[in-house]
């Protein structure tokens, strides 16, 4: 009999097995790879040209060059990060493979770790070429943000993972009936986290909701950097604190939903 030691506790070996599984799937299909680049590129070009037009007719936007392109690129980190996580999970349900995984020594935390890694891999495949396109078309160099970009990225990816973990729990508990949530849940963040406008634009009461969401701090921080040329470390730390809370809530919800799925028997019949 095999694998007794490897089955105790967290196993990097099992995480790497799952990453390999998703990588095999990704590389087996060029439409899947193209899809990672296609929509971010279209979005970036559309907002880039819009910004070009507005900046030629407005003094404020002429000074705040790159705000729209920066916003759309950072929004894509948030959105695509969650989507990359959730799509990999959905692939298991489409393939009716979840029962095989749940019956194997793979632990839920190892599956989640593999999904996190794959969300970064998928993001890199999509965002690196698109960020280079932004330099070529509009002279906007996302990479020149340096440390600030790293702070933005960490906070956005943490939020995307927290939402992805929650959605995975919903999928385990409710099967494919919850699939729509995987594709649309992040759009709730689009108006509330003030991706394209300052928080001050929102009604006063809604600003409290906005400030409870970590990405709001990132987008405010990005505007501070691009418009006022100030890096707001305080905003990044606040975002990190809210991310810790969000991550804890999402993990707790995931474990509760997984336990509920075992009670309801939905792990074996996840395609319903």
């Amino acid at each position, binding site marked *: 009999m095999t694998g007794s030691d490897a089955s105790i506790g967290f196993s990097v070996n099992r995480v790497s097995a799952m990453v390999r599984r998703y990588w095999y799937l990704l590389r087996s299909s060029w439409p899947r790879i193209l899809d990672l680049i296609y929509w971010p590129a279209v979005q970036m070009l559309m907002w880039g040209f819009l910004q070009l037009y507005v900046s030629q007719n407005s003094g404020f936007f002429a000074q705040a060059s790159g705000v729209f392109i920066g916003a759309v690129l950072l929004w894509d980190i948030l959105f695509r990060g969650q989507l990359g996580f959730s799509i990999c999970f959905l692939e298991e349900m489409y393939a009716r*493979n979840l029962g095989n995984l749940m*019956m194997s*020594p793979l632990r839920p935390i190892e599956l989640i770790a593999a999904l996190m890694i794959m969300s970064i891999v998928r993001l890199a495949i999509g965002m690196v070429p698109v960020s280079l396109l932004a330099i070529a078309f509009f002279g906007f160099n996302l990479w020149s943000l340096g440390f600030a970009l790293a702070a933005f990225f960490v906070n956005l990816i943490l939020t995307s993972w927290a939402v992805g973990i929650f959605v995975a729990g919903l999928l385990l508990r409710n099967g494919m009936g919850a699939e729509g949530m995987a594709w649309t849940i992040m759009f709730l963040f689009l108006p509330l986290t003030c991706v394209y406008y300052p928080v001050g634009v929102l009604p006063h009461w809604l600003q409290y909701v906005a400030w409870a969401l970590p990405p709001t701090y990132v987008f405010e921080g990005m505007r501070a950097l691009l418009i006022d040329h100030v890096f707001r470390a305080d905003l990044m730390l606040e975002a990190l604190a809210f991310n810790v809370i969000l991550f804890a809530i999402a993990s707790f919800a995931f474990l509760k939903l997984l336990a509920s799925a075992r009670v309801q028997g939905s792990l074996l019949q996840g395609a319903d």
Partner: protein
Amino acid sequence: MDLAVTSAIAVDALVKRYKGVTAVDGISFRLKAGSIIGLLGGNGAGKTTTIAMIMGLVMPTSGTVMVLGARMPKERYRVLHRMNFESPYVDMPMRLTVRQNLSVFAQLYGVPDIDGRIANLAAELNLSEFLDRPTGKLSAGQKTRVSLAKALLNHPEVLLLDEPTASLDPDTADWVRARLERYRSEHGATILLASHNMTEVERLCERVIIMKKGRIEDDDTPQHLLSRYGRETLEQVFLDVARGRSQHSEVAP
């Protein structure tokens, strides 16, 4: 020593209710190590739910399941690497080749020398010619052999099979049964087999548990069942149980 701990599988007063529907209703049985047991029953008898609880995928409403001395599902990670299963309710990723699928699962189960193990299984189960073909491009019979290879990857001590020969032609089904018999005799594994196929159960199993409406209606060796019901085949015994006929005295002509 406690019998539940020494048995490969010990099920005690197991109940599963889904929103008022009782799928499994207080069943108890023990399987000794190295035995091969058939779980018979019509649709909705509770076979799949029972197997799912043994695997730790479904939480019992009450009662206990012990597998290799571990309580399921609470202690499942102690023993999952020593178990495996095959079920019509799951598939392997279709776009991955057979080799990729097997190597991923081998790594998940902590199998040493993955390439060697896959080569051995491929030779044993006649998979070699399509190891590098996408799993989705295989015929039903070939997919079943791949699923069986996945189920045997880690040399499981406990093997749970839910209708392993469903939708197979008689030749392939017979071939699968022969492989299962050989695996059990060579490795001393405990095999629990849920099936609708009476010929299969009669050929493979030394003991048969017949379920109906979530309960165990009978539990005996095939020979004793035939004798007690006064029948020549297990199919006739199964029909007697399914239609509520009692043993011997009331059998239909």
